[in-house]
């Protein structure tokens, strides 16, 4: 693995930071308070090509990671836009029909269409395979009935990838917002991700063409959602890295400026201990993200597990670092005058979305036991 960035990657990272500093960081707190991401910002991201970067593989995995990192540096909520939009793009790129790809990818690339990912329901979160939403075939159509919940950017997305049961088999469908029987309901007052414009999705005898099926019957969760969730975990891992780095940077600045007992906070050894751990653990998260990027670049099958580990570690670290950042900021860190308060709330969400960390722990530990058995078999 080569850690040396190309000139293009270095330039891209700087460009992303400049964009975030100009359009995201100054207003992120206001968006959080108003629980909204304005369309002007979404359009600005689209105009830069950020929303459609994965269409046509115009961006390498590491550079895409940098984009998520830089956005996460200022706003966890906005990371979720990149996440869900790219999840649907990846699912369509991999498993869509030519007709679906030709119809939707150009609009998803320009941001004229915003995508949402409809997996979670009221009664099924991690147990997504047992979702209750149904799709019943009726001639050349499927009729969808059910509800999805906690859908990021569900308030504004106009194309949804929905997981539904077809005769008990998980199957993925594209559902356009304007379909009769489809409606959304905003979700407010969340702990974090307040400007991620969460919504519930309601499908009440929502009729869609059979050609809207993505993949095949029974492959909706394992392959279509599997592709999307892998992409989602990758984005969240990098977004968490950015969030943590944002907390580190804020803490370095605050502890330099803030004086207590006649000296800067940074002169106090207990603060130095916190900062040292924040920096080191965030760097460790960065290494896992780089590793996932490298494996993604070479399309190695182990990327699935390694991305899961990156998401798990980076999100845990983000919450710990954000908590320590609040601690360093004291009462100021508990007010929305400082970004670490928002980062702390958003970081908790990061431990839950795209597969809770408990789900990541289960699959990582299983993988570890099997690797142990495999290694033992080779040496006996």
């Amino acid at each position, binding site marked *: 693995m080569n850690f040396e960035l190309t000139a293009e990657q270095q330039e891209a990272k700087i460009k992303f930071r400049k964009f975030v500093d100009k359009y995201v960081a100054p207003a992120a707190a206001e968006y959080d308070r108003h629980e909204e991401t304005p369309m002007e910002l979404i359009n600005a991201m689209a105009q830069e090509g950020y929303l459609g970067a994965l269409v046509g593989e115009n961006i390498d995995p590491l550079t895409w990671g940098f984009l998520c990192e830089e956005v996460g540096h200022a706003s966890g909520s906005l990371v979720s836009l990149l996440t869900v939009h790219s999840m649907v793009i990846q699912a369509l790129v991999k498993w869509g029909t030519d007709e679906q790809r030709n119809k939707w990818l150009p609009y998803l690339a320009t941001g004229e269409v915003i995508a949402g990912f409809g997996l979670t329901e009221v009664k099924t979160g991690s147990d997504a395979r047992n979702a209750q939403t149904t799709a019943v075939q009726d001639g050349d159509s499927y009729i969808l009935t059910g509800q999805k919940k906690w859908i990021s950017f569900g308030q504004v997305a106009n194309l949804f990838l929905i997981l539904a049961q077809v005769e008990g088999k998980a199957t993925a469908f594209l559902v356009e917002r304007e379909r009769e029987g489809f409606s959304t309901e905003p979700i407010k007052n969340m702990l974090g991700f307040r400007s991620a414009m969460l919504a519930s999705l309601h499908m009440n005898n929502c009729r869609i063409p059979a050609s809207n099926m993505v993949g095949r019957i029974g492959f909706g969760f394992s392959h279509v959602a*599997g592709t999307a969730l892998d992409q989602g975990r990758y984005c969240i891992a990098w977004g968490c890295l950015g969030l943590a780095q944002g907390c580190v940077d804020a803490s370095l600045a605050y502890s330099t400026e803030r004086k207590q007992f006649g000296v800067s906070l940074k002169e106090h050894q207990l603060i130095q201990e916190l900062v040292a751990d924040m920096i080191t653990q965030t760097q460790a998260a960065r290494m896992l993200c780089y590793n996932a990027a490298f494996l993604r670049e070479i*399309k190695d099958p182990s990327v699935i*597990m390694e991305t899961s580990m990156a998401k798990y570690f980076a999100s845990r670290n983000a919450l710990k670092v954000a908590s320590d950042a609040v601690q360093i900021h004291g009462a100021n860190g508990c007010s929305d005058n400082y970004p670490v308060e928002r980062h702390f709330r958003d970081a908790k969400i990061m431990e839950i979305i795209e597969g809770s960390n408990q789900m990541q722990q289960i699959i990582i530990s*299983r993988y570890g036991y099997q690797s142990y058995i495999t290694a033992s*078999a080779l040496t006996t």
Partner: protein
Amino acid sequence: MTTEDIMPKLTKFVGQYVNINEITNDLDLFASGRVNSLFAMQLVLFVEKEFGFKVENEDLDYENFKSIDAILGFIQRKLAPAA
């Protein structure tokens, strides 16, 4: 590519996820609970990288993936010259 070419690579890959000595080549890996949905995606990445073809929408058939024999047959069909 012959069966002899494919099988060592395939069993080595599957062996990372199940105890290869405990299963037969016709065992349904999914129905037996030996693997999970993550394996399904790892399998797609494996055959694409190792054998150089793309798994497409129309390849999503349980019969292509359920056992070592099934995967072998799928790989051979994908690598076979078009009639």
